């Protein structure tokens, strides 16, 4: 791709998210969302492989339908209340808008497109879709928090955590595993919208850091499947050790960073006397933890059976990805900062 077009696309990708995040008018928010969709499509389709084309098509259809729903709901709101302000959206239309945003975020039961889009794109593109593309819709969820549809958010969150864990159990491709991990984390995230917006920010930041650490590690070792993970230790043993730590952090085990959101969310839910969702959420994180541990097992804790001369795979110099070390360190060590994060 020509460097000029590539730089235009990356600039538009960043700017469109910032437009949506800084808008007070529904039309401007919608414009930002559409520009966001438009500018990432050539990034997904860059290799022009049929799989990538299919992924880009699915991404476009889902995001366009969700953006059209947002436009419809905001027009309905303007018709009924007379203004386009995002923060004063009435309760009926916030339901429609929330459902559209949950479709954009890939939350169950609207999660079908997400693993296939991630599988069809490269590892870096999957990273962008999993982290940066979630910022704009989440900002809109923050802004309509004056009249949130609490039951929908709670129900979808619990269903997402369950679905992400359950369906992820059957996956062998690492990008699809990360997709289901993302679906489960998003489920935990939208529950926090009912609890406290500070908690939502904390959860989002920790999700982005841990997911970035994992994706960057997968990118450095070019492990696309679980069998590749078995041979990744030859490329960089410290990296595979840190991959195990990052996976444990994603699974929410103390004393790692990923424990912070889970602890705070369960704590807040118990304060609000929502014990049934608490129990289901806690149990739903177990299948996720199982497939993280399985991945860590194949990566670091065993060497899969192989002939002797394939044990030491010929390795090229692994690409030096700049953000890998900070992301991995943050993914593991931020738990002591938890009191600062919730105030």
């Amino acid at each position: 791709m020509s460097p000029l077009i590539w730089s235009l696309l990356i600039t538009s990708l960043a700017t469109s998210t910032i437009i949506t995040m800084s808008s007070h008018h529904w039309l401007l928010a919608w414009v930002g969302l559409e520009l966001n969709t438009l500018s990432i499509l050539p990034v997904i389709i860059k290799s022009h492989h049929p799989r990538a084309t299919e992924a880009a098509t699915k991404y476009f259809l889902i995001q366009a339908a969700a953006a059209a729903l947002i436009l419809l709901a905001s027009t309905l709101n303007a018709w009924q209340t007379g203004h386009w302000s995002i923060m004063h959206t009435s309760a009926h239309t916030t339901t429609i808008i929330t459902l559209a945003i949950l479709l954009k975020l890939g939350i169950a039961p609207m999660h079908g497109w997400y693993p296939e889009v991630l599988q069809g794109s490269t590892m870096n593109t999957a990273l962008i879709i999993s982290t940066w593309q979630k910022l704009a819709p989440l900002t809109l969820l923050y802004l309509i928090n004056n009249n949130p549809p609490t039951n929908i958010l709670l129900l979808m969150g619990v269903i997402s955590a369950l679905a992400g864990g359950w369906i992820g159990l059957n996956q062998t491709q690492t990008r699809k595993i990360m997709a289901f991990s993302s679906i489960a984390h998003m489920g935990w995230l939208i529950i926090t919208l009912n609890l406290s917006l500070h908690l939502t920010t904390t959860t989002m930041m920790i999700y982005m850091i841990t997911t970035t650490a994992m994706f960057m590690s997968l990118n450095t070792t070019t492990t696309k499947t679980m069998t590749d993970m078995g041979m990744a230790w030859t490329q960089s043993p410290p990296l595979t050790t840190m991959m195990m730590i990052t996976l444990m952090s994603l699974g929410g085990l103390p004393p790692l960073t990923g424990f912070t959101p889970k602890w705070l969310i369960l704590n807040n839910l118990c304060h609000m006397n929502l014990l049934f969702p608490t129990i289901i959420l806690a149990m739903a994180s177990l299948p996720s933890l199982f497939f993280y541990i399985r991945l860590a097992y194949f990566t670091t804790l065993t060497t899969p059976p192989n002939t002797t001369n394939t044990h030491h795979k010929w390795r090229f110099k692994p690409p030096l990805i700049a953000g890998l070390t900070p992301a991995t360190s943050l993914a593991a060590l931020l738990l002591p900062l938890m009191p600062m994060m919730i105030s």
Partner: protein
Amino acid sequence: MMYLIFLFSVCFVLGVLGVAANPAPFFGAVALVFGALGCCGVLVGLGGSYIGIVLLLIYLGGMLVVVAYSVALAAEPYPEAWVNHSVLMHVLGYVLLVLLVGWCFMELFVESGVDAAGFFSLRGDFSGVVLLFSMGGWLLLLSGWGLLLALFVVLELTRGRARGGLRVP
């Protein structure tokens, strides 16, 4: 007058139904023309003559041309017709859907405000454009940039024509 606007809106809905349930892209393009004409009639009847002209210009002069070129690429020699059984079921289904959704919203229908009286130079729709060019300069810049981005995105999306899923013979 309101009856005429109602007829135009029925034409618009039928055109959109035709686009959604078309048996072949040719018929979809024809239905799009009817839909655009109906929508333009609604807008002009309610006093927005400028916005109606712009709609016609963009839809018929822009989108329809693009649709026609795409249709020419996807031509099939024996397309299905409107009265084929499967197509008719789809159209009837969509008509039922529109009627049901319309029934829900009908009591919320308000009397539309019309500023179509006389020939005052400041009409509702044109004043909006004036505002866009004067105080909404940044939004104009954003729209222009969005259009440029769309151009380059389409250029990049159709670049791999021999290598992948978009088969162009």
